[in-house]
């Protein structure tokens, strides 16, 4: 299954605003994407509560997984989003 490993780029981690942006993007994706930290259980990337509960901080490596048509493109897009500092967008 296609996977991407990416370090969270947002200064405040995958919290509040960055989490919201990521979850909204994942919800629009054509395939079901999961996200996990280390060997913990993967959770749906479009679940705000689950993504928040990962507790990922800036620099935490997360693994994205998806299967099916467009999985690679979707993962590339979401990985690029995670690597950005989403807190700094409106600065």
């Amino acid at each position, binding site marked *: 299954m296609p996977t991407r490993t990416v370090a969270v780029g947002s200064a405040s981690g995958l919290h509040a605003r960055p*989490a919201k942006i990521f979850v909204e993007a994942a919800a629009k994706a054509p395939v079901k994407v999961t996200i996990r930290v280390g060997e913990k259980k993967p959770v749906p990337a479009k*679940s705000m*509560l689950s993504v928040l509960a990962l507790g990922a901080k800036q620099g935490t490596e997360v693994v994205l997984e998806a299967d099916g048509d467009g999985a690679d493109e979707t993962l590339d897009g979401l990985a690029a989003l995670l690597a950005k500092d989403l*807190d*700094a967008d409106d600065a």
Partner: protein
Amino acid sequence: MPDLSGIGVCPGVAAGPLLRIAAAPALPAPAPVTDAGAEVERAFAALAEVVADLERRADRATEATVAEVLRAEALMADDEELRDAVRERIEEGADAPHAIDAAFGTFREMFTEAGGYLAERVADLDDLRDRAVAVLLGLPMPGVPQPGHPYVLVARDLAPADTADLDPAVVLALVTEVGGPTSHTAILARALGLPAVVACRGILDVPERTLVQVDGGTGEVTLGASSVFSAKGVDEPELSHPGRTDDGHPVKLLANVGSVKNVPAADQAHAEGIGLFRTELLFLDRTTEPSRDEQVVAYREVFQAMAGRRVVIRTLDAGADKPLPFLHQDGEPNPALGVRGLRVARQRPEVLTTQLAAIAEAAADSGADVWVMAPMVSTLAEATSFADAVHEAGLPRAGVMIEVPAAALRAADLLGVVDFLSIGTNDLSQYTFAADRMCGELAELLDFWQPALLQLIGICGEAGRATGKPVGVCGEAAADPALAPVLAGLGVSSLSMSPRALSGVRASLARYSYAECRRLAELAVAAPDAATARKIVLS
């Protein structure tokens, strides 16, 4: 009925019917479920109503950050995993309210375990659960009531989510059972100019719709008022004279600002200058330090707007409750006692030297009388090295903030090397009483009338009198009209506050002679506790 009292945190008097923030609904006794499918639909509809309500409030919110918080909460309630968990519980036999409670409970546990930031978000989960359960039970949505007429808002405490869309035209005053002078309620009340009393024990026992009169200056709440009125803004005649006592002893009245945007309000309030220009605004939410040029522009705007007047600018106050991403300060065990304020210069001296150079460049030819001070100074050595750095940058006036007891105790020493002191009463309270500023349960320890705090201010004032150098107060305590004569009597020569508070403080000072101020100061310091100190001065 007996009257109640608490800590007045925003002056003004108002009266009206008391309405409470609707309490969180209690879970009813478990009910048998005969049609699981229908029960699931009922639960989902309740969650959808919560989402819709949050989105409506987000649409109405005038501030972008408020709207964003509300939308993030909506996204938390509109969660497929949450719905799956609710469905599972119902299929196992739970009714809708209990299924929702259990589903949120799972995430609650995960958040609590993760600790830190997430543990603080547990309150959001509880709020969402309460809202969904209220919908199911046909109860009013928890939160600020919207009765369609003016009222006095009462709560145990106010959370940012409660007050995000609070309408100051309808809410006459705020009263909370807990909270302190620096709590969210107090800050909100001052921002809206609403009379407010915090730490008012017993207020939650007063029956709904009782007419109450709230005095945000004295902290008194009188039950059984006879009319509905609001005296905010009309209780003081418009005064514009420089700050002084009845017999002409000067106490400069200055404004706290964060950027040039606040200068018109300071002018409108007849501020004699700026007593605290916070520079954090420029650094907040940044992953890289603002350049020297960018800083020069921001500082110059304020200096030029204040040409001919004093501007006390404070160097970067970061750390603790104001973490700055570019400083990468993660992982301090106790940030309030960690590398914050001037201490940042130990690790990153260039941040300070760049800032001082930018201030010096912006001050040149601006016409303003620019003074510079450092936050979080504890020792003579720190004060000396800061004063040297300021003078090396070509700035004539260096001062330090008094925020820790060590600095207050050695105020005379500090004044040997710096030109002025400015007392930050919020932090000085926090460190004197070892009481976290954000901890509502410790509100009475953070009361600015605590005699120990006043005594420390008095030590600074005495050092100022002895050396002839200015000693100001720029914390929230400076905005309390009743405390102003006490501070003047303790030897404080300037008070700096949010512009809105200036007229009340100006009027209060003008009611006392300097001799009376000194006598009140002595009595307040000698009082056994804060309540007695306040009572002595107000009687």
